[in-house]
């Protein structure tokens, strides 16, 4: 009986156990193969491929000792210090996604009960993003392009507004990549520096602007499907 007060204190301090659930994950590309870009340019995609890996969804961030007791590792950023919350859903793997093709079934993520706020996905490889096609300028000049991006970075902070409830499971969550947004920072008047009649990452500032677009969180969405 002497230990009863301490047992009660421990019970009061312990974090509630969070139930787990398996949630199907899908990935797809958004938009048509042909789309308008800034400056009255029409972009026509012939190929849009992305290799994605290790998808993680995060709870809303919080500063507290209890948040550090979550069973999955917490994710945080530096130097922005705009910390994401703890990882609440995780699906590890590597998938080749055709943004012009059918949605891809990634499998089931292991998730913990609770709110979701953001997501992140890894883009890693020598040609992890491949965007090829033509851009038709206002004067009908056609600029062929072939962008193959070597990357080893995560797309972070993809917003999602959803709740994992084992008693009312989501049918799935879809990760969508938007090639039109990825290419929205491209200056289609970039000089063809090597005169190969092809815009590549070797021309102008495309080695900066194309990866910038691919890694921008605005080029990706996460959608819960009830």
């Amino acid at each position, binding site marked *: *009986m*002497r230990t009863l*007060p301490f047992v009660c204190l421990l019970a009061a301090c312990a974090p509630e156990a969070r139930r787990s659930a398996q949630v199907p994950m899908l990935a797809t590309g958004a938009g048509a193969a042909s789309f308008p870009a800034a400056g009255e340019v029409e972009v026509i995609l012939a190929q849009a491929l992305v290799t994605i890996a290790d998808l993680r969804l995060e709870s809303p*961030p*919080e*500063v*507290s*000792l209890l948040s550090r007791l979550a069973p999955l590792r917490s994710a*945080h*950023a*530096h*130097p*922005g*210090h*705009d*910390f994401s919350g703890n990882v609440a859903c995780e699906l590890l793997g590597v998938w080749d996604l055709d943004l012009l093709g059918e949605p891809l079934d990634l499998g089931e993520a292991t998730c913990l009960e609770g709110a979701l706020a*953001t997501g992140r996905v890894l883009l890693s490889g020598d040609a992890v993003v491949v965007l090829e096609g033509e851009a038709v300028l206002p004067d009908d000049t056609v600029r062929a392009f072939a962008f193959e991006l070597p990357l080893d*970075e995560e797309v*972070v*902070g*993809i*917003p999602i507004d959803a709740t994992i409830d084992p008693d009312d499971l989501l049918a799935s969550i879809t990760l969508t990549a938007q090639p039109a947004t990825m290419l929205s*920072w491209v200056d289609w008047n970039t000089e063809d520096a090597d005169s190969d009649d092809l815009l590549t990452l070797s021309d102008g*500032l495309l*080695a*900066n*602007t194309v*990866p*910038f*677009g691919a*890694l*921008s*969180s*605005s080029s990706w969405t996460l959608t819960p499907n009830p």
Partner: protein
Amino acid sequence: MHRFTILTASLLAVGCAGEGTWVLETWGEDYIEQAIPADVFADGCDLVYDTFLVVDSELALMDGDGEPAGTIDGALVFDMTQVGPHEIGSAVVPATHYDEAHWRIAPMAALAAGNATTAQVTRMEELGAAVYAEGALTCGGTTVGFAWAFDTDTTYHCEPEDLTIPAGGEDSTQLTVHGDHLFYDGLENEDAAVRGQAIVDADADGDGFVTQAELQAVSVANLGYDVGSHAEVEDLWAHLSFLSRTLGHVDGEGHCQVDL
């Protein structure tokens, strides 16, 4: 009777813990007080701050219920180029362990001097600034001056390092300001580098002084900078402004959650 004695003793122990003093200080470290040397910049630049003013307000130590256990009043201006650390203030609080402190770096209408001069306080009020940085950046033999006023509004939620206020004693927390953070080439990536060349290159009129307007004319996408989840950051001034909200740390290198 025995059980009652134990329970009563426990309750008395909690209620009679006593009070102590929480001391809050701030420091800009060598990077602001002296210089950011070339070996810190990935592109070999170096920087000296002449002035680095910060407005600290809404300073509070939080209890376990998320309520203020102690507060330090006022909106105080500190010149971080002065050799520190500098005491911001103190508060009498219940003696116990604490794991959360808040403070805000934001423009305030009525300011008081921390260690800043009257003229500096007036200047911050006129600018409506939360952070004011003035100095010189040198890259590849070219030096540009700058005087930047940031009106960003940031509340920091921090976990002090091992803060336990003893009864009748004191313990302290430091609001550490990292002056190199304005020059990171990424907003969220852990391997972001400190760079200055893009800022020097932004001097479009070649007058040796880089203004807010000149920085606003530079696209971060063209620089290859990484904005992480902040797609709204499109130009170099917005990039620096965002980074002005990452300056505050706790007890040296401790990171804080920020309200954006």
